[in-house]
């Protein structure tokens, strides 16, 4: 099985006042074709930054991102734009990820216009097919984002991401802004699409349940490093690293806090890391 995406020793730093802030600290990973790779961590862990470095939306300070055998850092702007048709992204806030002044149809058409020669009726047919695939009727094509619900907008986001038949889909907190029942619909959709089309996903989320549900492989990130990684089931049933254990314990829904917990002063992180 080939690796669709390989990240080698990615480091990303930002200048911060007079010092340097390291968002991603020497991270390496590989994603095999047709699998779902989950990146889990809290805010400040660097998972979103890592995803953006993987897509070259940010240039890593050092390290390489290799997609389908191409070193993304070495590609010129035009070649990079072309390769982007092989990647899709779905963002966290569904309504905000769509241009408020463009109709749904136009938003889905945009990548097609940029990367394919489709026009006129052929283009319209493709748009309608995509909208159907994500469970939205083609009748929605002329509507504006604010007229749709969060769940519907996210379906549009997924349709747009799939428009150019990409190999890799990057999902950045795809259901965090959605209600429980809508989240279930979207997760079902994402799973169906992945299995039907043999897509590869890079899933970023702070929600452990969502990650566990979708992922084959999982990596846990903390302050820019991967502290633990491996098959999803193993990570969740037999976590090795202390931080992973703490994350799992803190996840909501595990039951009442222990009495012992409540009388100890909780440990506080210092400012800025929340």
């Amino acid at each position, binding site marked *: 099985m080939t690796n669709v995406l390989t990240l080698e020793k990615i480091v990303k730093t930002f200048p911060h006042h007079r010092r340097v802030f390291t968002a991603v600290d020497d991270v390496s990973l590989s994603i095999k074709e047709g699998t779902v790779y989950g990146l889990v961590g809290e805010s400040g862990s660097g998972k979103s930054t890592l995803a953006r470095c993987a897509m070259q939306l940010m240039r890593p300070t050092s390290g390489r991102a290799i997609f389908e055998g191409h070193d993304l850092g070495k590609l010129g702007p035009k070649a990079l734009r072309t390769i982007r048709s092989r990647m899709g992204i779905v963002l966290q806030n569904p309504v905000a990820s769509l241009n408020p002044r463009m109709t749904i149809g136009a938003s889905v058409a945009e990548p097609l216009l940029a990367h394919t020669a489709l026009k006129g009726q052929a283009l319209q047919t493709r748009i309608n097919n995509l909208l159907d695939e994500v469970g939205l009727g083609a009748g929605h094509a002329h509507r504006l984002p604010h007229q749709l619900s969060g769940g519907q907008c996210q379906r549009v986001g997924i349709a747009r991401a799939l428009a150019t038949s990409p190999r890799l889909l990057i999902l950045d907190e795809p259901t965090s802004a959605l209600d429980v029942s809508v989240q279930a619909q979207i*997760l*079902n959709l994402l799973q169906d699409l992945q299995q039907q089309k043999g897509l590869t996903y890079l899933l970023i989320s702070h929600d452990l349940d969502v990650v566990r*549900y979708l992922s084959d492989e999982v990596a846990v990130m903390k302050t820019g490093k991967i502290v633990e990684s491996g098959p999803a089931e193993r990570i969740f049933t037999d976590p090795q690293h202390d931080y992973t254990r703490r994350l799992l314990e803190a996840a909501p829904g*595990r*039951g009442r806090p222990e009495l012992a917990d*409540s009388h100890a002063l*909780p440990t506080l992180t210092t400012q800025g890391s929340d």
Partner: protein
Amino acid sequence: MTHVLSIRDLNVEFTDRGKLTNRPVRGIDLDVSAGEILGLVGETGCGKSLTGLAALGILPRGARRTGQVTIGNDPLQDSSEPGGSVAIVFQNPGTAFNPVFTLGRQLSDVLARHRQISRAEGKAEIIRHLSLVGLPDPERVYRSYPHQLSGGMLQRAMIAMALLRQPRLLILDEPTTALDVTVARQILVLIDELRHKFGFGVLLISHNLGIIRDVCDRVAVLYAGRVIETGPVEAVMNNPRHPYTRGLLDALPAGRTHGQRLNAISGTVPGNLLSLTGCAFRNRCSHAVTDCSLTDPLLTETGPHQAVACLQEGEL
């Protein structure tokens, strides 16, 4: 048993130039006892936040409330300022504080409005509260500006601010949504500890079933402006009686892996609640019968402190 909060037949209506446009809260009854944490859970648009605001006596413009809200023994007056016995903690601690004033200054303002107290005593009182909520080095926090503190610390400060009002009822509206899981957990532990210590009642509003389960004693599930199920939290979570509650719990990915499809509730919440007849959930319910579109089910007791609003209750 004293109720710190008692709501009967609460309706919230929105009007636009005299014309009724929506009724997002349609007859809610609920009680919170002293020292108890009641969870108000529901998805977007169910009316939970509005219920919380109505309990404070502050509603957005154009909204009108009918029904009774009683805090302790006093019926609620409508005013622009919430009554002294109730305090609220909002979702986003980062934006709840004014960025140009120190926390100490903002907390002093709240204290001054609430109690006649000298400045020196006031500062000592605030420092005491800041340490009560688990903030290390409260002197430093007192002098700090909001942007110098993390989200978790700000949320603790908000809780301290609420406690300064010596409330009988504390309302928390999505208190942990903007926080990381580990920090969120600490906040919930803190709330639990504080209500035991001070004996106030807590109304915890959230869309997250997990945190409701973790910290609440009882839960009320809201759908389309009504309470459709209520009871002790373990009973409702382990044995939900209303089809919507079942659907909600079934839709959670917790503990499931791919290969198992999630049971998403089909359809969407009805948009126009004014023209609704019968049960609001019937279009999405797999157990609906003809009667469900004619009769609006009332909340009926099914056990000690447990109630469900469903015509099919008992058959399921």
